[in-house]
């Protein structure tokens, strides 16, 4: 639900490396159906990973991770119209406007790593900001430092939010460290938006799911 390829300025992993690494993880017994590329501050309309996806039997979807004045937000179901309405490179955009615009264009935006110190939604709420449209957050983030996922968990509990999991991978071997287990079958980005709206999912750690079963 949250990964960065070389298309992002701070990642060194190619999509091919990700899907190959997923083959390794599958051989170790992990169930991984697909990944969502959420490149920083942009959406890659021109990138087509369908050949790779087919070759390695990994669903490869595309989204975005945008910088806002209230932290980073993951956007799924991005359309041309949404990118025309919002400047994805604007690091000072209002997250509330982003969430509303996303829904108007059949997409969905939700806070990434809300427990992150200094930039997570938790800090902005503590400063008195309110975000009534937030119903889902990234509860598990594979790039979190100690205590940050716990803060996200507390946020979910205190505000009755549901959570997804995302690896936030910038390196090949970090892909799928955290994932989201959906009840619905997802084949395209619009399926993903629909599945998020149902709220029938849960965040999981890769290490806790082996051979389709929870190890914890």
């Amino acid at each position: 639900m949250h990964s960065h390829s070389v298309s992002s300025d701070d990642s060194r992993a190619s999509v091919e490396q990700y899907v190959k690494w997923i083959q390794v993880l599958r051989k170790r017994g992990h169930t991984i159906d697909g990944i969502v590329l959420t490149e920083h501050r942009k959406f890659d309309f021109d990138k087509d990973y369908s050949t790779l996806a087919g070759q390695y039997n990994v669903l490869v979807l595309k989204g975005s991770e945008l910088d806002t004045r209230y932290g980073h937000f993951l956007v799924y179901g991005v359309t041309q119209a949404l990118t025309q309405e919002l400047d994805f490179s604007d690091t000072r955009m209002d997250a509330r406007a982003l969430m509303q615009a996303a829904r108007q264009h059949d997409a969905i935006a939700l806070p990434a790593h809300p427990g992150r110190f200094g930039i997570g939604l938790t800090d902005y709420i503590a400063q008195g900001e309110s975000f009534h449209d937030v119903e889902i957050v990234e509860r598990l983030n594979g790039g979190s430092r100690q205590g940050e996922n716990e803060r996200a968990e507390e946020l979910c509990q205190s505000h009755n939010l549901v959570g997804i999991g995302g690896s936030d991978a910038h390196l090949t071997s970090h892909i799928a460290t955290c994932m989201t287990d959906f009840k619905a079958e997802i084949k395209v980005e619009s399926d993903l938006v629909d599945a998020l709206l149902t709220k029938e999912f849960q965040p999981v750690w890769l290490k806790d799911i082996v051979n389709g079963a929870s190890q914890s």
Partner: protein
Amino acid sequence: MAIELEYDRSLYGVEHKAGPFEITNEIIDRANSSTGETGPAFRSDEGAKEAGYRGRIAPPTLCCILVRQVSLPDVKVKFGRTQMHAGQRVEPKAPVYAGDQLTASSHLKDVYAKTGRSGTMVFVVWETTFSNQDGLVVAEVQESFAKRE
């Protein structure tokens, strides 16, 4: 309100040339020494020929050292108080041989803002293409500099 980055946009599309840089055995020796390179192809003509090259080659990261000799103009970014080097990446395109004369051509690739744990930073990205005396592109180096609040 979006951050309106203030900098010298007239630099876009301008190529800044530098060189020629003569790739001597001494330069290759120093590059090898700095990285602990021991590969035979980088050490001697004989080792290189055994590996299928026509002569001694320079380590692929040599152009990362040479790029620092390219004089680049001030982008005049009006943001932050601290500037730091933010990284390099090199894409080797062809072998660089001892005796080559390389030229560099640099251009401003991007200036953008991003936010993270430490606040907002503005990145300036330069892209430099190195070519040899035959006009063959041997490497592309991308170098970033960051300014922070």
